[in-house]
């Protein structure tokens, strides 16, 4: 698995339009762009194949070749080591070019960051919301290797159980979490909203988390928590 050694993937040709085949044709960022333009990060950055590849920045349509792959860069397979800035720390991890940020956080980091939840894996639910350079993004629609050089913040980066952010404190106080599986996504999405404007109205808050699903039905408490946190933040409280 994540042993750091790159290899060539000798798999048989996939039989359907898998993400991988799609990526070969379209380039990673474009693939995400088709799926959810609103939540996609800047598409121009592309993927540099990391330290072991020693390649510089490349465009997303022609990703730099990982070691062991076709030197022309057409064959985007194998594993590459990249470095990501996650919650203020630079972390090395081994991913495949097709590995989403969501899977990278949850399955490739050591130790993994599992606060970001995997629920639909296709941009329908918001449970995987993270901040990329301060903007909310669905981690399931981002390719990990596209995010080199970007500042990624997950729910763990906003506060810890011992030192909760103002919004997290209000989520607890207002009972904004029941089963809690959707909660990290709501917390991150609303954090971004309040960072833009702590005086956001309830309607703005609703819009900020309209892309987040909650099956337990915590919405009214979530809105209350967001408004209460906004008031405190506007007053400069921590």
């Amino acid at each position, binding site marked *: *698995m994540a042993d750091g050694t790159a290899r060539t993937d*000798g*798999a048989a040709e996939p*039989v359907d339009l898998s993400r991988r085949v799609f990526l070969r044709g379209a380039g990673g960022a474009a693939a995400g762009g088709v799926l959810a333009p609103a939540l996609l990060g800047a598409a121009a950055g592309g993927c540099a194949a990391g330290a072991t590849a020693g390649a510089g920045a490349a465009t997303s349509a022609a990703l730099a070749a990982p070691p062991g792959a076709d030197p022309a860069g057409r064959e985007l397979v194998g594993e590459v080591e990249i470095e990501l800035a996650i919650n203020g720390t630079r972390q090395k991890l081994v991913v495949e070019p097709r590995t989403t940020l969501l899977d990278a956080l949850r399955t490739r980091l050591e130790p993994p960051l599992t606060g970001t939840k*995997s629920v639909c894996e296709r941009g329908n639910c918001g449970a995987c919301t993270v901040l990329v350079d301060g903007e909310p993004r669905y981690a399931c629609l981002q390719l990990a290797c596209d995010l080199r050089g970007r500042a990624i913040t997950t729910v763990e980066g906003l506060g810890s*159980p011992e030192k909760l952010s103002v919004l997290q404190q209000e989520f*607890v106080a207002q009972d904004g979490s029941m089963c809690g599986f959707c909660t990290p996504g709501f*917390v991150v999405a609303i954090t971004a909203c309040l960072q833009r404007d702590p005086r956001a109205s309830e309607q703005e808050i609703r819009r900020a988390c309209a892309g987040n699903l909650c099956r*337990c039905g915590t919405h009214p408490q979530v809105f209350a928590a967001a408004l209460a946190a906004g008031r405190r933040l506007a007053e400069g409280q921590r």
Partner: protein
Amino acid sequence: MKLEPRAVPLQDAPPKRKVKTTQVVNGIETEVEIEVEDVPAGQWPPRASLRVLNHDIPRVDGPVKVSGAARYTHDVRVPGMVWARLLLSPLPRARVAALDLEAARAVPGVVHVLVVEREETGWLGQPVAVVAAETLEAAGDGLRALAARFEPLPWVVDHAAAVREGAPAVGRGANVGRPETDGDEARARAALSASATRVRATYTVPVQHHASLETHGVVVDYRGGEDAVVYCSTQYAQGFAAEAAKELGLKAGNVRGVVEHMGGGFGSKFGLDAQGLYACRIAKELKRPVHLMLDRRAEFLMSGNRSGTSMTIEAGCDAQGSLTGLVAEAWKHGGLGRGSLSGLPYCYKAGAHFRDVRSVRMHLDASRAMRAPGHPQASFGMESILDELAYAAGLDLVEIRRRNAAHPAWVRQLDRVAREIGWDQHPHRTQPGKPDREECIGIGFGISNWGSGGSSDCEAEVRIEKDGSVVVACAAQDLGTGTRMYMAAIAAEEFGLPVAAVTARLGDSRLPTGVASGGSVTTPSVAPAVKDACTRARGAFAAHLAQVLGRSAEGFRFGPDGVRHDGMTERLAWSKACGTLPAEGLSARGKWQESLQTRGVRCTQAAQVAVDPGTGRVRVLHMVCLQEVGLALNRLAVKSQIQGGMIQALGYALGEGRQLDSALGLQLNASFEEYKIPHALEIPRMTTLIDDDDTRNGVAGVGEPPAIPGASAIANAVHNACGARVRELPITPDKVLLALGKVV
């Protein structure tokens, strides 16, 4: 000195103690001291004396949930773990024509391919093969490399096809089940003929998905040897551990089942399930831990659902609006399962009734319990026909309900809910409005009930350590309802401690016997057991202190100001008192007690909607709920749960429902993109009221009743707004336009 936990001796006259409480006198909150009985066992203290319970208590696991630190089954990582994924039957019935196992095994990273169906599949989404690999991505490659080919066999996935002469058989036996009947048909029909007003209509509800955000699945941590730990997203920690032990071929006691947190279940998650068995098999084969969680599509296709129903109801009433007769014919659509439907006339009484209910089987996933199984379906039929009857007879919609409700609690609830929703000022109380404006406002009502009692097997343990810390434990699990929090809160109440001073442990099969969390039984099972354990622990602690201090055991009181004795002026701080305990501390086991719980919870809801007759769009403006809850352990969490039920009902009313293409044998909406659950912009104003006129001092489960009548109330409100009677859920704009005759 060895401390043996023992029961508290019951006393004839319970001693009294003074407590501070707030009372509202002339509208001003004042702190008063009142004297209450220090009840030794078997009863909750009087509500007015409660310091922690029946208040708003933030969850003890809130901080880990809001910061992403809570560990769900999905998040479990153990060394050497492999990732497994499922291949499902893409058709309702098919011959498995080709599976290229060699190709799948050859995929780098793939470590195991397990075929679970080689010949023929019999339902849409039935698992066919499992691929385990070193990475999630490689497991997906393995699935694709299988290059599975399926040859269609004749199937039935809709009612009409299933009941047709010569229809392909669904399993053994007839596709239409034997009738389950109730009541006297001749009497009911005679009563209908004699009634002043009668109406007849057919109502249909779709299959609803649980749509828990955490999918079903397990992590089986078996690395060879005699022991295993199994993590499972489940509503029954002890149940799946035993199943896993059997599948792994280990002694039952050697397999520990753990569910620290779970991301929703709503009735769909009890056993180990097929995927759990496969994970065990692979783990046993590889002697390596296996992570197998369903993906979203599999969750929709193979993890159960709320059965659909089609019901034809005929009801009649006398001139005053009393139901004289009701005849119902219903079909349940539970796929391979039997489905469920509560008895009509549901929460109402009719002079005479008769019902005939049959299940219609299809080549689809079997239905499972879902939050109040059978109730929302019955409620939709019953509340709809009641409104149609009221309009036909020119009666007030609240009045007809007050008159026919089967329990007086609903009458007082209807009055209050009608007030809250503004019924008296509403113009359409006996006739629906007309589609004559851009925004037509309507109001609808519904009532519900649920049994809500607990399970007598439930046990709990309380440990008081020498350092003053307290641990409460029970094997039951917290589904997000706040079990952990009220376990801690009960102990805090009993020992006079802050909630934060108590640690609650649950979701572990090794802890004292818990309960399967279904049918709202968790709270009325666990809370009494914890309370009993605390009472016994207090008794044992008092007996110990009696020896240490040379006082009578009966005189000790545990309160927020420490430990006191009737015959002493000074107090002993809790930590000091605990310091006198032997090194192993003190522990006591408690058992469920009938007297600490209560059964039968009633709920009434109203909905106010705005319908745009030009587009057919429905917006819910306001929902009101008033519900009995017995003794509320935590008012904050009770309200959250009630609201959650109402929001699920809103989804059932306006958006949810499995969509199939019968000819192609596909589910068209097996994703959150097409299966629509409510989101932030659709949440109405919500008035959520705990019915404090319910003074029963026992704990009840509160989760089911609020999920029942909301959809009926919304459907009735749509009709009330503009005269569009939509008899099939969900009420999508096209159906509203159809009902208004705007499209044909």
